[in-house]
């Protein structure tokens, strides 16, 4: 039963965290308020996406485009507290221009101070401020240079709440790409989004433009790798679960050989004995699976609490629990097949002699 529980718990935890990750990314993109996200269509990963200044100028010239916000993304290891262990595993850096529309979002999230105006200023999330003691007015080290914290924002998005908003020129220089950007948030009138999307893809075929809500499903290849990873882990977990249940069921059949012989002598057919053992395996797996669902949620929440909510978030969808249940059923039936076959084919005469 433990094998099934661990298998189901693992599947539930992985799927829930992946859903959480995808959901966070989608919500992050949607929270920009933009109509379209523009990035390199041929980049293997978002960090390799490159949108040039010339691209920006051409998009701004498209009829229906109201505004374009240029962004960089990066991350750095925060300073340690005197020993070798950093307080946080990583801080995300969001490169933005203070005059661009994307900053409206941070204006809404602002809890203290103001938004940055100069390349030497940064705005930090409430989580970062509390974790590292980076209050308004603090001078903080980022990539070896010192910046002044001028504001603190509080976002409900997992990724953003682990971040620092910094001037895009500063981050661009740091990344060695001062004249190109990771992606663009494009703002249009609501009715112009489709025509602008088509125009971008016609005029700039190297780029892709997608609505924010479609970003994860259409572009996030790295998240597809996660799906493949989940499939692999699910298979491994199922094999472990099957071996566990198989062992239990084989022992159970062996211990009850005389009972099975008695049932067969009393007229129970092979099919009935087969079904009984299969149902027993299935029940065992269902109980283990139910426990595994609870263990999966509890384990995921414990992991999130241990690691940090700013980096990890889980979304528990009904489909996840259905998948967990299916894993339990598959494990139960698969693992009980051979013991059931053995039990059904015991000869009553030999089974009754078994000691």
């Amino acid at each position, binding site marked *: 039963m433990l094998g099934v529980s661990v298998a189901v718990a693992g599947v539930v935890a992985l799927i829930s965290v992946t859903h959480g990750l995808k959901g966070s990314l989608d919500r992050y993109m949607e929270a920009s308020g933009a109509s379209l996200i523009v990035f390199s269509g041929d980049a293997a990963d978002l960090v390799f996406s490159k949108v040039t200044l010339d691209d920006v100028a051409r998009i701004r010239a498209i009829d229906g485009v109201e505004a374009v916000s240029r962004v960089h993304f990066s991350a750095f290891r925060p300073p340690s507290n005197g020993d070798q262990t950093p307080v946080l595993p990583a801080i995300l850096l969001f490169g933005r221009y203070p005059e661009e529309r994307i900053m409206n979002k941070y204006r809404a999230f602002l809890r203290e101070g103001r938004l940055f105006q100069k390349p030497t200023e940064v705005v930090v999330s409430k989580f970062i401020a509390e974790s590292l003691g980076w209050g308004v007015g603090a001078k903080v080290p980022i990539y070896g240079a010192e910046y002044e914290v001028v504001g603190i924002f509080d976002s409900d998005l997992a990724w953003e709440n682990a971040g620092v908003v910094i001037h895009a020129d500063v981050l661009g220089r740091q990344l060695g790409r001062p004249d190109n950007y990771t992606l663009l948030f494009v703002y249009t009138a609501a009715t112009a989004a489709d025509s602008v999307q088509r125009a971008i893809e016609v005029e700039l075929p190297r780029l892709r433009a997608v609505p924010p809500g479609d970003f994860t499903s259409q572009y996030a290849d790295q998240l597809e790798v996660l799906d493949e990873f989940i499939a692999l882990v699910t298979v491994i977990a199922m094999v472990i679960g099957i071996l566990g249940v198989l062992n239990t069921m084989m022992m159970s059949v062996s211990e009850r050989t005389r009972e099975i012989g008695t049932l067969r002598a*009393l*007229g129970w057919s092979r099919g*009935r004995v087969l079904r009984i053992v299969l149902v027993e395996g299935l029940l065992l797996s269902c109980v283990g699976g139910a426990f595994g669902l609870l263990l999966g949620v509890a384990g995921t929440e414990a992991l999130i609490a241990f690691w940090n909510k700013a980096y990890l978030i889980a979304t528990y969808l009904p489909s996840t629990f259905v998948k967990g249940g299916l894993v339990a059923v598959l494990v139960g039936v698969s693992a009980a097949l051979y013991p059931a076959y053995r039990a059904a084919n015991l000869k009553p005469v030999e089974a009754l002699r078994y000691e």
Partner: protein
Amino acid sequence: MSERVPASAKAPAGEPGTAPLVELRGVRRVFEGGLVVALDGVDLALGRGQFVAVTGPSGSGKTTLLNLMGAMDLPDEGELLFEGQRIDSRRAMERVRAERIGFMFQLHNLIPVLRAAENVEVPLVPRMRRAERRDRARKLLGDVGLAHRADSGVRGLSGGERQRVAIARALANEPALILADEPTGNLDSRTGHEVMEVLHAARKRTGATLVLVTHNLEICEGCDRHVKLHDGKILP
């Protein structure tokens, strides 16, 4: 596959004019690749309602004979017939066991996790609804004087009570043939005597044939037929 045997081919039965209940014709059964000959050329026909005692020394083939008559095993040579039908397939064996035969074992073989009444229900599970078989199990327990123990667990029953539950279970499917392998072998003489009284009463009430394998010649008294086995052969 079962096949109806012509009446002319039938061996003599216990009741004139009817097919024998169970019949063995030239049956040979060997084990360990032929090194052990358990039964050798056995011919036997048993009629309905008889009390048949099977005796013989250890290794004489008593249990093998019982297993064959109970359709739990098939002969290597010869024929096994039940009510005139040849038993030569697993399906035929299962059907006969389920519908026509009741078993009693030396060690009662009750399912320890079930209550007394539930044990009696076991042979009825494949063919009867739960409420129906529950009523029948309680009636059968009443017939063997154990109505008050219907809800007791097996572990709470004495040896004699366990064998009486086993008798009720053997009668559950209204068998034509009751096979009992040393049913008093593990009981003291007084309890064994009581169990035999219950068994005989049940036989008379149901009209079933009782085949009893035993070492105890005392409980063979009054039998309609005494089959003595030695080295796999029936002694004349």
